[in-house]
């Protein structure tokens, strides 16, 4: 384990060859932004928008086109080239990226822009000292102050950051820069204590045991209608979710010249599944809310063997009418028991 003084962080950022994203104040909260010479804020707990937006931007050009007589000229957008360093993401968001990897970098098709970016991304996870009341990462087997498989895990000990590499790439970078010293035994035990204590601060629990199997049996249960009742069908929960990956493909053009891009889309929106002939397989918010919860708790586990929720609590925090997935899970468990 190595240590670096927080005052030396600008040197670290400057030494990294690529674009460094750090959490900065944004509106009433925090967000990731390219490092511009300012030091990162120490008191942030998590960003409003998860770092998925760095690897899977909300809007991204795919190609530009030009109608030339009867012909179409297509010019692919230049892909991401620069290496990306995300400094200070939380373990839940690290897991969120691992889950996006399952969608975008696996299966018969790779998502080229995401995969290219991801292959060139270095994740520097900062352990949480303390969870928010809305955090429930431990329910999904996560640790608030440690992300298995992260390039770096870091712990904030006040004056210094402790760093432990978790990948070969992580070790190489740590060994290759002369900004670090060996951590003292005292510091190592402090980090361990921080890690243990952080776990205890996560008080919210979601009942995950058997939820997938239970939901499989209850697709038509009246609970769905009840749960969906107060939903206003905005996209806040999905856009702020570190694992939601739905997107739309759209074009914009003037006089036969334009570009095609992709942008985030939400299964909560009324026309998301609406077909050209007018048929909509998910016509009301009952079906749409059901799809969102089932995608996290049933479909994702069926397809990937893992829950599609990391317990970051963003949806609980930002839903205008306080829809609460943990409460839903508890209700669903009650229903299943009957």
């Amino acid at each position, binding site marked *: 384990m190595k240590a670096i003084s927080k005052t030396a962080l600008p040197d670290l950022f400057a030494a990294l060859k690529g674009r460094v994203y750090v959490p900065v104040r*944004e*509106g*009433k*909260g925090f*967000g990731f932004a390219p490092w511009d010479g300012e030091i990162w804020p120490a008191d942030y707990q998590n960003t*409003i*928008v998860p770092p998925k937006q760095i690897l899977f931007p*909300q*809007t991204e050009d795919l190609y530009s086109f030009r109608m030339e007589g009867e012909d179409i000229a297509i010019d692919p957008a230049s892909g991401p080239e620069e290496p990306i360093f995300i400094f200070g993401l939380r373990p839940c968001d690290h897991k969120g990226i691992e889950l996006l990897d399952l969608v975008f970098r696996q299966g018969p098709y790779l998502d080229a822009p995401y995969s290219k970016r991801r292959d060139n991304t270095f994740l520097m996870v900062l352990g949480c000292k303390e969870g*928010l*009341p*809305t955090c429930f990462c431990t329910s999904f087997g996560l640790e608030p102050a440690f992300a298995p498989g992260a390039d770096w895990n870091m712990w904030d000990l006040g004056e210094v950051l402790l760093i432990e590499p978790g990948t070969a790439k992580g070790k190489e970078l740590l060994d290759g820069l002369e900004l670090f010293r060996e951590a003292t035994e005292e510091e190592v035990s402090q980090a361990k204590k921080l890690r243990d204590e952080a776990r205890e601060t996560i008080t*919210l629990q979601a009942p995950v045991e058997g939820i997938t199997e239970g939901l499989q049996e209850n697709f038509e249960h009246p609970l769905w209608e009840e749960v969906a*009742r*107060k939903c*206003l*069908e*905005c*996209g*806040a929960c*999905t*856009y*702020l979710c570190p694992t939601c990956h739905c997107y*739309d493909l*759209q*074009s*914009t053009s003037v006089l036969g010249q334009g570009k095609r*891009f992709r*942008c*985030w*889309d*939400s299964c909560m*929106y*009324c*026309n998301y599944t609406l077909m050209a002939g007018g048929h909509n397989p998910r016509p009301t918010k009952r079906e749409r809310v059901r799809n969102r919860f089932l995608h996290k708790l049933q479909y994702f586990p069926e397809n990937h063997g893992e829950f599609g929720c990391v317990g970051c609590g963003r949806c*609980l925090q*930002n839903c*205008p*009418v*306080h*829809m*609460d997935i*943990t*409460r839903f899970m508890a209700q669903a468990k009650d229903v299943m028991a009957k």
Partner: protein
Amino acid sequence: MQRITDKMRKRAEELIAEGKAVRFLGWEKGSFWWQSPPVEIKEASQTGRLNWDLFCTANLAKYLQQMQSAEGKTGVFVKGCDARGINRLLRDGAIDRDKTYLVGIPCPGMIDPDKVRSLVGDGEVTITQTEEGLSLQGPLGSRKVALDEVALDKCLTCRHPEPVIYDELLEGAAREAFTGDPYEEARELEDLGSDERYDYWAKELSRCIRCYACRNVCPACNCIQCVFDMDRPNWLDGATNLSNNQVYQMIRFMHVAGRCIDCGECERACPMGIPLRKLAAKVDKDVNELFGPFEAGLDPEEKLPLGTFDPNDPDSFE
């Protein structure tokens, strides 16, 4: 608070039993201290879920539209801003007065959770009402404050904390109605130079993620199909960029011009913390100066300033 909660539960139970309402819309205690989300009560036996506290911020008027196709009357508890929301919807013919039963609650003003957090932290927070105000307890300590120190900004300038339409009114103390200048912030922004003002809004609106939470909570956004959900024609594509975000917010605020009741739900719902009430205030100020004085949502049959033609309307495009 408890007294009003008890009364709410009792009245809802009675009204459902008497058949005056088939269901009731109110608030229940949420998962956290700062949450009192909307709830729909369908049986007299469930009325114990109803709860009144200083977090019953959500405007319930919005839900009446989805209740229109349901059988029977819907009972609704209304604060000042809910009541104005209902007048709005009535004025637009979006809901049927005969299908609603309104129980008014004089509103003391609602709490801004962020203001409480900044004083006593988050987590285990308890808020108790005292003679003088509120006693806050949280991980960072205890504080005694006046409600106004932690109230939502929109409540501080609320001109109608008493419901303006109801079938019956619960007894209770409303906050004092605001009589000052509602456009102070709008004026401050106007006083900036146009470049500065542009930069201010560009910075704020560049954060918009177009989740449409502001639109979907808004009791003045009652279109059956919103222009932003249309494919043919597609007025605005889905790309989030400053230009598109500006178009979205400008169209929305111009569309609610003269109909916005300043319930502040857009700003509360915005996850990105965009100060949407300031945009609303500027539009409302202009409507008032050009066609006013006018306050939306005070009367279900009000003449809308932008919905009524008057040959004497100012014509500044000369």
